[in-house]
């Protein structure tokens, strides 16, 4: 085992960008690995369900090109996880198309190991029937209907598929949905470094410079792993890691900063120490990995629930603002009555900015007595785009001319900033699966293939 394993994390999400100066400063430190996480469930269920990426194609291509060129030039492996934002088959293919385009344009010759993460519905159903799929609290129990309705179901791979792929000696590993730290932790774990330290380092590096002060999702971060510690160092003079910025990052987007469950076990950070080594180097010790009795893979799925049309409007009328709750109830009733013979299945919602548009049910002061204007989004979701248009249009025209008590402005109740006033928002998805698959084999559900470029 060599003394230190060095990792260059380029950006928080592939396609979020990074300054070339930071990247070159990282390369000058001779990293053993260049890696980036390329996805998240944060942007919501639409992207997994639709098979589209929430990241921009040109932006992903820019980041990937720099990483690939540097990796090939300096003979450093490049590893990308959760390709295409959600890591199902269309996302992985989308990202690999970009790789092929870069290879052709830049005349690069290399091999890619593709790790697939989509698990077909039949397989998930069979596992569920055998009792191997358990809820991840507070998600509801899984149903057969939810599995069958899912457009895509992915499993979050741990480090094992990456370790397997590393044996294939490819210059690039491009993986579907992966547990975020895996892309950084797999290679050092394979080389014999401590699993707890490697995963904790990966957990921080997956957000790149977000753990620095000031934080940034579009700047590089450098990680150094040794036998019983790891260190983080920012690469831009504009930011610096501090013990507090690194410790604070351990809180980010997780419920419990001490015990972080993942594939194969739990990261136990209760004994962690954060020390300032000077020159912006923050050293972390004491991270432990505690294997679980049962290995699990987190499953994520999304299903289509309809199509959406929205209309954007506002009101500046104090009497309308005072009556807003009654008006909304009246409009909903009028629309329902208008189509009562049709037996349509639709949902009609009003998001009211100035009242509780941001916080909804969590808003402690849904009070409009002090506001001078309200923003209103009329949202209709129905089983077809056409039907959602109809419901939205009826609600919009009804609200525009609704005769509420005390009305003085009789020409129209709404200010529309745009013509047309209504917008197709397309298919609507919801998360259908967010569960744990119990399996003793961490490799079984993740098929690996290698592709040489340029194609022969």
């Amino acid at each position, binding site marked *: 085992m060599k003394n230190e394993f060095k990792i260059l994390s380029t950006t928080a999400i592939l396609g979020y960008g990074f300054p070339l100066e930071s990247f070159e400063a990282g390369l000058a430190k001779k990293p053993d690995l260049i890696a980036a996480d390329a996805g998240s469930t944060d942007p*919501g269920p639409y992207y997994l369900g639709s098979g589209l990426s929430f990241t921009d194609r040109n932006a992903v291509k820019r980041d990937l090109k720099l990483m690939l060129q540097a990796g090939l030039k300096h003979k450093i492996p490049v590893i990308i996880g959760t390709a295409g934002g959600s890591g199902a088959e269309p996302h992985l293919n989308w990202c690999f198309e970009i790789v092929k385009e870069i290879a052709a344009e830049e005349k690069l010759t290399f091999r890619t190991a593709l790790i697939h993460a989509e698990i077909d519905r039949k397989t998930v159903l069979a596992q569920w029937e055998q009792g191997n799929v358990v809820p991840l609290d507070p998600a509801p129990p899984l149903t057969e209907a939810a599995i069958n309705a899912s457009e895509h179901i992915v499993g979050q791979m741990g480090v094992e598929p990456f370790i397997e792929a590393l044996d294939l000696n490819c210059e690039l590993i491009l993986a579907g949905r992966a547990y975020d730290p895996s892309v950084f932790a797999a290679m050092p774990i394979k080389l014999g470094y401590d699993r707890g330290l490697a995963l904790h380092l990966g957990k921080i590096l997956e957000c790149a410079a977000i753990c620095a002060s000031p934080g940034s999702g579009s700047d590089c971060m450098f990680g150094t792993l040794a036998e019983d510690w790891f260190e983080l160092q920012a690469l831009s003079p504009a930011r610096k890691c501090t013990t507090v910025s690194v410790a604070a990052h351990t809180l980010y987007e997780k419920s419990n900063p001490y015990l972080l469950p993942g594939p194969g076990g739990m990261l136990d950070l209760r004994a962690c120490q954060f020390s300032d080594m000077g020159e912006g180097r923050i050293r972390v010790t004491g991270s432990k990995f505690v294997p679980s009795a049962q290995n699990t893979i987190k499953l994520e799925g999304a299903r289509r629930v309809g199509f959406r049309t929205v209309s954007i409007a506002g009101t500046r009328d104090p009497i309308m603002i005072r009556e807003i709750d009654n008006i909304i109830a009246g409009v909903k009733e009028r629309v329902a009555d208008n189509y009562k013979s049709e037996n349509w299945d639709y949902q009609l919602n009003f998001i009211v900015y100035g009242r509780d548009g*941001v916080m909804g049910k969590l808003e402690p002061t849904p009070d409009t007595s002090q506001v001078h204007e309200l923003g209103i989004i009329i949202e209709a979701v129905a089983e077809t785009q056409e039907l959602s248009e109809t419901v939205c249009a009826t609600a919009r025209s009804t609200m525009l001319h609704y005769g509420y008590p005390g009305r003085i402005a009789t020409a129209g109740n709404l200010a529309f900033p745009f013509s047309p006033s209504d917008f197709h928002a397309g298919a609507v998805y919801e998360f259908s699966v967010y569960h744990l698959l119990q399996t003793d084999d961490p490799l079984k559900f993740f098929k690996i293939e290698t592709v040489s470029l340029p194609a022969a």
Partner: protein
Amino acid sequence: MKTRLIDIADVIRSKNSGPYELTMDIIFKTVEDFERVWNAGVINEALISQVYQIDPDQILSILAFPPAKAIKITIKRPICSGNIGETDVYGAQQHAPLLSLSFDLNQA
């Protein structure tokens, strides 16, 4: 005299922790203020229930993380992220009611 949270905190933020949970972090400027607030027990279930208009059983945890001088609050999301009826897909704007909190720390 009441101490305003916004005066002694460096960071007050909210974010999804997975699509079913919402987590709020309060990171204090000094260890002293972090310890004063945490030891006083003023950030508790009753306060969070009131601030977010939720039943106490919707609160998953309220805990301290001394390495970051932080208090972390995690609650169940009213709905799964992105479900119909959503107002904040990322959960990044649910911190606001915490900004106006103030505590009588001398008494505690």
